[in-house]
């Protein structure tokens, strides 16, 4: 599935880097602990998190993640959006909570394992 389809299918709000939505999603990862994502995240994953501070962009860049989806309708900080624009990392927002969003993504075929 491409990021573009994901956005449509799950009614996600795009905050930046809307030009990068052609990327193919390889899998999914959910965690709010940066050290955990750095250790276990994989290139091409969509990262689901509650964190909104700018460090998430650094991590996403480092691990070459496909996109960051912020849940519970939280809005990322301005610094975060700026940084993400520069790095070309799409940030999207979902109103759902982690469990529900992950559940639906899993159902749609985006797996947590390779």
């Amino acid at each position, binding site marked *: 599935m491409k990021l573009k389809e994901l956005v449509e299918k799950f009614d996600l709000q795009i905050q930046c880097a809307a030009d990068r939505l052609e990327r193919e999603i390889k*899998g*999914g*990862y*959910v*965690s*709010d*602990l940066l050290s*955990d994502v750095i250790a*276990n995240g994989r290139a091409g994953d969509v990262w*689901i998190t*509650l*964190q909104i501070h700018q460090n998430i962009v650094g991590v996403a860049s480092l691990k070459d993640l496909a996109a960051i989806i912020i849940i*519970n309708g939280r809005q990322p900080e301005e610094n975060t959006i700026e940084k993400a624009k520069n790095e070309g990392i799409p940030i999207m927002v979902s*109103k*759902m*909570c*982690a*469990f*529900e969003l*992950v*559940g*639906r*993504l*899993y*159902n749609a075929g985006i*797996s*947590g*394992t390779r």
Partner: protein
Amino acid sequence: MNLAKIKEILKADLIVGSSLEREIKMICACDLMSDVLSCVQTRFSSLLLTNLIHPQTVRTAEIAEIPAICFMRGKEPQDLTMDLAKKNDIVLLSTSFSLYEASGRLYEEGLPGCGEYREAK
């Protein structure tokens, strides 16, 4: 669904406690403790899935009245975490799945998260 069934689905190990007959009505998947607390629905019959193995997880569960926690990726909690869980009668499980996989599987079984549970009420 009771904890015993969930333990089976997640192929989890039981680390602390024995009350596997506890009924679980909703799942909270979260690493941030403040968010666990702000989810009012959690009390009495929810399971917390988390990557965080620090004792604060158990303290949060105690304050929020969450009866059970499952840790991810086969992580084993610290001694203090286990002691607190024993003292406060909170069941601790550990699964080798990632939080993503575990959530996906439980969602497939029909368990709701906070948002959907709220609507059902």
